[in-house]
């Protein structure tokens, strides 16, 4: 019976009160996090993602490793992650890694973009997108974020992302900025990165996709943002929406110079 606590840990988080001395607790938690680094289950998703990227798949039996351009040329993976989202000439859109993968799966492999977007996280081809995003991101590990801002659309998306970051709404009047608009703040014991600037290497935008220990799931950036919006009491963003892409541009440009730690392992 006791173990029922585990799966509902996240839900109970606001009710739980660890009886621990604060200072030693944070040191011990740092030790715990360090112990988890070796053997991050994200590696399982990387492996799967690499295979999917290199396989001929879908109705058109296309191979993304041959034909998908993530911004650095067809099939080029290294360094792509730290320059996304960016503007793509072929779609005339600013796209993040996940929405770009959807485009490629549609054009190269013949998958139905919409039905993948509507699949729940962790299931079917949506899980495959996240696995590929994990592998692609891992190939830029340690590289510094350097999103392009040369195209007018990229600059517009930065400006829109900034508006969205500060947009207040819902029954609690929350904005992204309510929690992530000041340095050195926390919710309960959870430290909050200040996303108005570069919060540091491997923090915030530079930490996702990440393996989440609490539920054993691999979370992409959009999954992370969706859950932020859930806690903000906002409605759910569509998968590959311009709103989440614009927020990605805002956070990614702000994080210029931060080294990517992806795939990370988090609470």
């Amino acid at each position, binding site marked *: 019976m006791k173990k029922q606590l585990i799966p509902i840990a996240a*839900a109970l*988080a*606001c*009710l*739980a*009160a*660890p*009886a*621990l*001395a*604060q200072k030693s*607790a944070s040191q011990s938690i740092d030790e715990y996090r360090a112990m988890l680094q070796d053997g991050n289950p994200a590696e399982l998703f990387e492996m799967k993602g690499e295979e999917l990227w290199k396989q001929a798949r879908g109705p058109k039996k296309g191979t993304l490793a041959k034909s998908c351009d993530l911004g650095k040329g067809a099939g080029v993976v290294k360094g792509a992650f730290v320059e996304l989202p960016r503007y793509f000439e072929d*779609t*005339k*859109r*600013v796209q993040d890694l996940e929405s770009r993968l959807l485009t490629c799966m549609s054009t190269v492999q013949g998958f139905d*973009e919409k039905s993948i*977007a509507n699949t729940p996280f962790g299931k079917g081809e949506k899980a495959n997108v996240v696995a590929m995003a994990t592998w692609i991101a891992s190939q830029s590990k340690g590289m510094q974020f350097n999103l392009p801002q040369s195209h*007018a*659309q990229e*600059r*517009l998306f930065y*400006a*829109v992302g*900034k*508006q969205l*970051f*500060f*947009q*207040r*709404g*819902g*029954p*609690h*009047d929350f*904005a992204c900025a*309510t*929690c992530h*608009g*000041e340095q*050195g*703040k*926390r*919710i*309960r*014991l959870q430290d*909050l990165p200040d996303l108005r600037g570069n919060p540091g290497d491997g923090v915030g935008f530079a930490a996702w996709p990440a393996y989440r220990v609490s539920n054993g799931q691999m979370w992409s950036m959009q999954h992370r943002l969706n859950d932020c919006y*859930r*806690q903000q*009491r*906002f*409605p*759910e*963003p*569509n998968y*590959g*929406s*311009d*709103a989440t892409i*614009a927020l990605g541009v805002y956070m990614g440009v702000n994080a210029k110079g931060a080294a990517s730690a992806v795939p990370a392992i988090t609470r």
Partner: protein
Amino acid sequence: MQKPIQFTLIAGAVALLAGCAMAPDVAEVKQATDAIVKSSFHDKGQAKVTRITQADETNRLCGEADAAGKPLDEATAKRLEAANMATIKWPANGNYLGDWKKGEKVAQNGRGMTWSDKPDAVNGGNCYNCHQISKQEISYGTIGPSLYNYGKIRGVSDPYDPKSAAIVQYTWGKIWNPKAYNACSNMPRAGHNGVITEDQVRDIMALLLDPNSPVNK
């Protein structure tokens, strides 16, 4: 799905800004943001799209001021504060204080009104997410100021004493609608927006002001 919207943006923005490395102009950004907000979200559970498309004036002006990086001008701030002040529902019978033990539970509970919460569930006050309150709870947030010893520091030894009336009323108003005192406060308008009930407000009041509450020990 998003293609049509981005396409219109290009038609507008690129035509204006083609080849020039300037930041896009304010009207363009506003138009693009509105279009993107409209196209990017869907209803889920009790979290409807209207929660963000129908922001009230306070949220709209404060969000714009935050994004611009400059506070509201004083006249606007005063006007919004007055409008929010007018929404405060004062306790009908003058009964401001409930049970601090129940108040502690409301303060601990951070749930309610997300798309994954049941619409008929009891909502929490979210207080510990941002504030230190009782000394016993070490898992508290720091977005808001510490409320430990809230009543004691303010000299409230008997909240029913007329001498305490001003602070008691201020505290009620602040919980009900903090934007009445600071137009762009980060604190939710928990009473005004119906997040918590009048009885729950009374219980939080007791947690903060009752001399027997652990907050004032």
